[in-house]
């Protein structure tokens, strides 16, 4: 079984939400900033397939606690149990995926698409839940909880212990019907106890009673003894699973959750939908990676897995097809995929997922053109700490690598997924001008240099001589005196040797520019560590920069953006 669409109205923090899942998705990893309503989304799915007749909803489950607007959840599923296909069940209600429920649009099945059913849960002010199968062609038809039991949905949430004991709502009930067995076991056990109970200490009252009987005319035949009275009851809530003498409920949370997941999947092989809130909960990174790969493997019996996470380990383990960003603004929740139609952009984002998964878990991103910029921003972070007394993390800001030519598109996608983004990139390619303009029109600030400068060129142009001296030293330390001096000579830049270092004095603008170009072309700082070092030196000299210099302006504006000042952006 798999979910193809979900529509939610007025449930907790979600006023309105309509998400379509790709038809072939097996694993969907939901990420999003805190309070982005991810968990409510999972809750909605759990409710709409609820297998019993009672579901307790309260006033606070309604959006803004307003019970006048009913809670409505519509889940569309494919590959559901065959029994529901019968003519007198829901055979006449079949639909195809991705069609809105509006009682007008034609929604009959097509041969090349999976057969779907849509189930609707509605709860109005009376708090009475009502489950119906709906389609655009007919009046809704009730679906009983007996039929709903056929949906294999497992929710792994906070109440794990229930799955490791034989309670009424435990997943174990799908494996064996424990009620009769437990009742019988209980009755036998209690009778044994009653038989063996030694209450002889109470027998002292025997003689007194016989005496009273004789005096008052009650013929007591036998010797009076005290015995246990057996009353009815059940053991269901107190029968748990044990590993030897150790109850499973005392194992670590991670282990308990893993067992529960396995039990849920095993109860309906190939069909189960698993809803896992915070998949990383209680799990070490290696067990987490193992789990996700197990879900994905060929021999896995799972139907579909929907999980939420705050863990970069989990995100890194997923592919771009599997990650959905959940984003909530003013009650409207959207779920967007990072995948687009452009394979180059997809590759860039996929690489980002693998190497810098953390960035997807931030709310705000500086999309950098390459490693140099990323290093530079690291230095920038230190700069903010020392000058403004706060770090980027405090403002929820992280960096993302745009991988050169895909920088603008990456930024665009991230923006569309709800991240607050800005771009830091060079101005050396004319072809990028159009893209930059589009980004700005979208409201994405683009921080770049005077045309046609790169970062290196702009810095070399604007920074004071002493700083130039220091940054050249970085290159010398990294690549050796010979290589760097050779390049300087080739460019016709005057320098003197000073104890194995290079000393420069009085450079013209062209010479500065040439140095910058050389640095760029020869990749002197094209590594995060080198870029960071470079940036540190540049930034430590900020005050020495002219106030109208581009370098200073960009740094100031970037700081403003991070700080969320009103005049941020160019």
């Amino acid at each position, binding site marked *: 079984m798999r979910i193809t669409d979900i529509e939610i109205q007025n449930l907790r923090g979600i006023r309105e939400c309509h998400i379509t899942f790709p038809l072939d998705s097996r694993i969907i990893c939901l990420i999003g900033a805190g309070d982005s309503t991810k968990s409510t989304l999972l809750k909605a799915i759990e409710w709409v397939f609820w297998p019993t007749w009672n579901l307790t909803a309260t006033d606070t489950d309604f959006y803004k606690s307003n019970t006048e607007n009913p809670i409505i959840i519509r889940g569309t599923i494919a590959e559901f149990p*065959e*029994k529901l*296909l*019968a*003519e*007198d069940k829901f*055979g*006449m*209600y*079949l639909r195809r995926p991705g069609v809105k429920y509006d009682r007008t649009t*034609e929604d*009959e*099945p097509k*041969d090349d698409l999976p*057969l779907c059913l849509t189930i609707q849960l509605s709860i109005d002010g009376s708090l009475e839940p009502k489950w119906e199968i709906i389609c655009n*062609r*007919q009046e809704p038809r009730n679906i009983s909880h007996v039929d709903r039991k056929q949906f294999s949905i497992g929710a792994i949430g906070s109440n794990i212990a229930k799955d490791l004991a034989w309670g009424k709502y435990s997943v174990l009930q799908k494996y064996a019907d424990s009620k009769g067995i437990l009742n019988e076991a209980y009755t036998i056990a209690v009778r044994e106890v009653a038989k063996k109970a030694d209450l002889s200490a109470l027998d002292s009252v025997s003689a007194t009673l016989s005496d009273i009987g004789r005096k008052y005319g009650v013929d007591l035949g036998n010797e009076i003894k005290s015995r246990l009275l057996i009353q009815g009851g059940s053991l269901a809530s107190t029968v748990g699973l044990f590993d030897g003498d150790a109850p499973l409920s005392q194992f670590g949370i991670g282990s308990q959750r893993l067992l529960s997941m396995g039990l849920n999947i095993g109860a309906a092989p190939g069909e189960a939908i698993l809803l896992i809130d915070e998949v990383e909960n209680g799990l070490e990174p290696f067990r987490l990676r193992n789990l996700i790969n197990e879900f994905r493997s060929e021999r896995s019996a799972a139907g579909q897995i929907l999980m939420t996470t705050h863990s970069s380990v989990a995100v890194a383990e997923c592919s771009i097809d599997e990650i959905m960003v959940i984003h909530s603004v003013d009650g409207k929740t959207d779920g967007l995929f990072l995948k687009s139609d452009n394979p180059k952009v997809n590759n860039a984002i996929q690489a980002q997922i693998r190497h810098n998964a953390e960035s997807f878990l931030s709310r705000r991103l500086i999309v950098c053109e390459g490693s140099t910029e990323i290093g530079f921003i690291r230095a920038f972070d230190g700069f903010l700490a020392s000058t403004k007394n706060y770090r980027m993390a405090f403002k929820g800001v992280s960096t993302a690598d745009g991988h050169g030519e895909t920088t603008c598109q990456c930024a665009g996608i991230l923006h569309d997924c709800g991240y607050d983004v800005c771009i830091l990139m060079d101005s050396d390619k004319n072809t990028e001008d159009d893209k930059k303009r589009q980004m700005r029109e979208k409201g994405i600030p683009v921080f770049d240099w005077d045309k046609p400068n790169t970062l290196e060129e702009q810095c070399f142009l604007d920074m004071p001589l002493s700083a130039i001296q220091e940054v050249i030293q970085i290159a010398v330390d990294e690549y050796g005196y010979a290589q760097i001096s050779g390049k300087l000579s080739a460019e016709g830049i005057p320098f003197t040797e000073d104890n194995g270092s290079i000393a420069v004095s009085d450079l013209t603008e062209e010479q500065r520019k040439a140095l910058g170009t050389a640095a760029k072309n020869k990749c002197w700082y094209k590594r995060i560590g080198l870029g960071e070092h470079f940036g540190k030196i540049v930034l430590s000299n900020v005050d020495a920069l002219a106030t109208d210099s581009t370098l200073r302006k960009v740094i100031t504006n970037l700081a403003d953006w991070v700080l969320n000042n009103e005049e941020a952006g160019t």
Partner: protein
Amino acid sequence: MKKQELEAIFAQQTAAVIAPAGHGKTEMIVDMVEYAGGRQLLLTHTHAGVDALQKRLNHRGISKDKYTISTIAAFCTKWGMAYCHTSAVDTALSPYRTKDEARRYYSQFYDGAKQLFQHNWAGRILQNSYSGIIVDEYQDCIQPHHEMFMVLSQYLPVRVLGDPLQGIFSFDDQQLVDWNRLGFPVVKVDTSPWRWSESNPALGQYLNDIRNTLWPALMGHPCTLDIESCNGGICVIDPQIFNVYSLLGEFRQYKTVLYLTKWEAQQTNFCLRHPNIFQLDEKQECEDLFKYADSFSNKSGTDLMLEIIEFESKCSTKVKSELTSFTNRLAKGSFDFGHIKKNMEFGQLIGEIQAIDKHEAVLCALDWFEKNPNFKCYRKELHSEMIRSVKYSRDHGISIYEAAVHIRKDPTLQKRYQGFKCLSSRTLLSKGLEFDCVIIDMSTPLTAKEFYVALTRAMKKIYVLSQSSSLTLNP
């Protein structure tokens, strides 16, 4: 049915069983339902057929989860409405307006079902609902029905029962399915003429025997049948000598008597000649009902009264002659009946009802005619249906014409008139029914199949009105 026969039928994906009239076809179907595992979809053509099957299934105590019964039309309509896009059904059409639109309305569902079940997913729904399909009265299926069942046989076993010798329902442009080219293998089943076992076994056996003589008609060949007396069970009488009144004594021992003839005009004429004895068996598309319902709706005043009188003259004898004076006055647009002496109270009645609501007025008038002993009504069904239409129109706020269409066509509103002792009818209307005595008028010859259907309506006695007892029957 014998076990081997059931096994032979169920061993194949499709099967056809030929079941002659009165040979226990309904029992066979119940046997099949009982024998089969799972739930069978039972389909037949008419609601009367559904009722007959349901009765027998209840009688045999067959559990309700072993079957679902429906008419073919209802089945196709249900599916067509549920998936109108895929079956290309136009839900704006209505069967209640024009005859032409009604024909298009019904035929679109048969074509639609065939189209719908080309899709595998639709077949899957059926497979999850039933384990087999059984169709009754297959000889009444037309080609589109047959094509649909051929498509359905891809998903579920289809078993059909019928009697090709009773295939008389050819529509104008729709050919009945050709039993020689069914595509379903015929399974032989032993049967005996159960229907006549108590009333007249010799007759039953004879009617079975003559099938061989009549069978060539199915190939398009004429055949000659020499009628035998069957111990007095069958009498051949010259139509010019035939006199109903001389048989009235004999009729006393019969519960029901049926007169069958070829044409509607003869059917009506027979009633006229024997008023108060034979009632007219009305067809479903009762044109007189619709015609007069429409004019009652549209007319008022003197015109309405004229229409009422004309309607009544169609239902009963002597109306025209008794009320000539009234019709003359009314034709002149006058309500002045002061000079008329004959049937004076009618004049009074007309006067009174002018003041009241039209529905009540019409009902009052119809009631007067019904109670008047001068008029012998031979179309009690028509009269009664008109009263029902007027009442329905009054109660539901629709025109009398619309009401007539509804009560006549809506299966939930239809009323069956089965209480008449002597009925004048045609084979098309009487199929499936049984009468103690049947009079078959061959002065206008019936076809071989029509004749067979006519013969098999009789339980005890048959009168064949023919000059010769050797009949040449055309296919």
